[in-house]
């Protein structure tokens, strides 16, 4: 099976999806709904709401299209001996120039010619295992993002209909906070064990060059999640006051 026969339908499908997205959301994005008295705030909320709508649909489609596209890419490129795919592995990289004796001139200005960093290292691999593993990690991330977006979209919808201060909305924002915390806790483990599996798969035996999977405690993510949960508590209190206010005659 040639590359063209597989890639062409995939490309056509992709173009069709983009066209469908554009046609479906064009009216919502480029026009302001008439009929309701729109204040400036309301217009901004509506814009964000439609953006979320679009983004949500986009993520759903990406998640739906990713598995077939992965298979198509694998089938079409499998026979190609030069085939490889870039994956980003969060790793600790250490380069010891002392080991490159004879290759490197004596560097000036540094006491010990040893460099280290913690970064996402791009690795070009032909390992299908690595390819699917990292695709799976991004799909899990996509599902978490989808969950957060669904909650956020409902919050914005309630904001548009002036029903924002409710215990339900507070619950939704709390769920977003939990999702952020869970993802902040799970993602480093996925990255670490995924990276370990990949780096073990790729034999790495160059002296003076160390590449290990990195693990980082996600302080920012955890803190953000906590702040969101606290804010949901504030909203819950606001909802209670709103209810009191409504029932004050």
């Amino acid at each position: 099976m040639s590359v063209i026969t597989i890639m062409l339908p995939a490309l056509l499908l992709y173009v069709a999806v983009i066209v469908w997205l554009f046609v479906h959301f064009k009216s919502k994005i480029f026009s302001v709904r008439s009929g309701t008295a729109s204040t400036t705030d309301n217009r901004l909320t509506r814009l964000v709401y439609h953006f979320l709508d679009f983004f949500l649909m986009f993520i759903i489609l990406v998640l739906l299209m990713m598995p077939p596209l992965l298979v198509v890419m694998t089938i079409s490129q499998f026979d190609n001996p030069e085939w490889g795919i870039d994956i980003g592995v969060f790793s600790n990289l250490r380069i010891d120039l002392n080991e490159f004796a004879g290759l490197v001139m004596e560097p000036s200005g540094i006491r010990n010619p040893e460099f280290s960093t913690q970064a996402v290292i791009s690795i070009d691999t032909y390992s299908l295992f690595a390819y699917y593993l990292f695709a799976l990690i991004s799909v899990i991330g996509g599902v978490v993002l989808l969950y957060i977006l669904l909650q956020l979209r409902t919050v914005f919808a309630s904001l548009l209909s002036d029903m924002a201060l409710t215990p339900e909305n507070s619950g939704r924002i709390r769920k977003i906070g939990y999702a952020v915390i869970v993802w902040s806790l799970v993602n480093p483990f996925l990255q670490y064990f995924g990276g370990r599996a990949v780096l073990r798969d790729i034999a790495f035996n160059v002296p003076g060059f160390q590449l290990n999977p990195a693990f980082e405690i996600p302080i920012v993510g955890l803190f953000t999640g906590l702040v969101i949960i606290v804010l949901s508590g504030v909203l819950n209190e606001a909802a209670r006051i709103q209810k009191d206010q409504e029932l004050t005659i």
Partner: protein
Amino acid sequence: MSAMIKVNLDLLLVQRKMTLTELADEVGITLANLSILKRGKARAIRFSTLAAICKALNCEPGDLLELDKEAE
């Protein structure tokens, strides 16, 4: 919690031979809000509303509100 204070609006309306709509018109609050008050669902009442209702019904606040000791 809110059932501790009983609102005797029913009784006063019957005694004054008034309907809820008439009272709402006279006091100047919506029928829906007055209905909330009558059914004992209200969480609070403003002094201004209380004064207006008492004026319309020609009664004292104590006639309108009563501590429901059984609800405790």
